[in-house]
């Protein structure tokens, strides 16, 4: 905010050297023009592509067809279910760990930082290769033991827990960053000690003292996770599950207009999620 306020101060500068402002304005116009062309044309053209059919004229058929296309509801529900499970798991795992680092075990901080960085370094496709290898090896090695049934259950097509595990790992960096930003601005130690001195139990401290104070951080971590899970293709496709993004590719073969319509909708969805995110951030300030 302070930085924005300083921008107008540049204005007196050009008065000292007259030729600069016009030149600056020209290159700025060129850059903005090229960018607008590059970024807006594909969007506008794609929308045109979905509503216009040669010889038939304009219609919103591609958008109304989405609902009745087989697999839409089931794949979307699967993705939403996976997202919900991922959000709950990632919050339940990271929040206590981050509180622990702040309260009792500061020496764990480098370990947490590492955990929150690794998934950014490792490309998702190599992570799937690792998961696939581990699952295959595990199924072979554990065939005679009771763990085998667990391993099969984890890969259940109706609700693949293995995807939740993978998505939790992939979203850890984002959840960690959001929660870290939220916890940084409150005095965790004082809050916890005050609540504990007044006789609050640990669950009470966590749910009634900490969580309400980092509500917007939790909201932003959840939205980022939701966005990631709803858009994730690589892991689900290579492990062979029909999540929403995988379904989009499956139906694209038959109906080009439909798949582009779905792409535009997913763009709008990201925009909506982002709006909600910045709305949640702003409410707090």
């Amino acid at each position, binding site marked *: 905010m302070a930085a924005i306020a300083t921008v107008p101060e540049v204005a007196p500068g050009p008065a000292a050297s007259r030729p600069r402002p016009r030149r600056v304005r020209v290159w700025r116009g060129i850059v903005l023009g090229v960018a607008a062309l590059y970024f807006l044309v594909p969007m506008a053209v794609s929308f045109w592509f979905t509503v216009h059919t040669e010889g038939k004229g304009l219609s919103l058929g591609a958008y109304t067809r989405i609902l009745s296309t087989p697999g839409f509801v089931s794949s979307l529900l699967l993705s939403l279910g996976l997202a919900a499970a991922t959000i709950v798991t990632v919050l339940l795992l990271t929040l*206590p760990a981050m509180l622990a680092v702040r309260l009792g075990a500061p020496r764990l901080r480098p370990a947490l930082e590492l955990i929150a960085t690794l998934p950014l370094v490792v490309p*998702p496709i190599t992570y799937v290769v690792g998961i696939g290898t581990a699952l295959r090896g595990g199924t072979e090695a554990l065939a005679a033991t009771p763990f085998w049934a667990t391993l099969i259950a984890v890969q259940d097509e109706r609700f693949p827990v293995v995807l939740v*595990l993978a998505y939790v790992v992939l979203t850890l960096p984002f959840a960690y960053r959001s929660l870290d930003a939220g916890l940084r601005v409150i005095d965790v130690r004082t809050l916890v000690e005050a609540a504990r001195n007044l006789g609050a139990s640990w669950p009470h401290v966590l749910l009634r003292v900490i969580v309400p104070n980092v509500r917007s951080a939790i909201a932003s971590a959840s939205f980022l996770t939701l966005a990631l899970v709803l858009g994730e293709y690589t892991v689900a496709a290579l492990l062979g599950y029909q999540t929403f993004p995988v379904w989009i590719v499956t139906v694209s073969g038959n109906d080009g207009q439909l798949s582009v319509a779905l792409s535009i909708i997913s763009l709008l969805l990201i925009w909506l999620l982002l709006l909600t995110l910045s709305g949640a951030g702003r409410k707090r300030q």
Partner: protein
Amino acid sequence: MTATDGGTAARRGGRTRSTGWLAALPLLAFVALAFGIPAVALLLGAFTVRDPQSGLSSYSAANVAESLRGNYLATLLSSVRLSALVAVLGAVLGTFLAQAVVTSRLRALREAVLTASGVLANFGGVPLAFVWIATLGNSGVVTKIFGLGESGWSLYTFWGLVMVYMYFSAPLMVLVMTPALDGLRPQWREAAQNSGATAWQFWRHVGIPVLAPALLGGVVLLFGGAFAAYATAQAMVGSTVPLVTLQIADALTGDVLIGHENIALALSLDMIVIAILVMAVYLPLQRRSSRWLR
């Protein structure tokens, strides 16, 4: 359970270290399970060769050696070249765009560009490919209007991919560079002007050195994004452009010779090594830039 136990300990005065450990334990255990096991499986598998005749496996570096030869090496290099190009071009376009927005006095323009950048930086995968196919693909709207097909245009090439990847890379660079450019104090520019510096001298000796960490960090980020991208390339070019992610997916779904099944693992290992090398540049830089820009 553990929470209540820890509570009693704390109430007795003095939190024991074991309590702190316990709350972090689930996360550590989870990562060891969900991340550690696949990582170990990948590492072991990459160095395992199974003899097709006897069915016995043995440890050897043959897979890794093969993944760094011939066709496999070519795909790896092609991926690196694509990512490097996208990173540099995206960084240039993104930085100029960020500078155009930062120096603009229109508040609405700034807000609009930053919001759009946030959306587009997250817009990847298959939908991105479809939007571009509808625009400039073989039967895309723009292709048809201008008759680009006859003049030899094809989106499904190396340069087509560069163009499409820029669609999320440049906005990401805008998001990286805007705070950095905001951190360039007007006073520095005024001081340079008062001392008789030209605009070029200002950028050469003040602006670019201060921005360098953010710039390089952004380039690394873009490189990583383009290097790891799979869905967009898969939906767009199939296998006409050699890329290591596509090669891994092919090898994974069984498109390899018998006895070479673990080549996907070796290629994955190569990718991770490259990613780590590149990230090793980024992390120290990030620390430096955060010290400068506050």
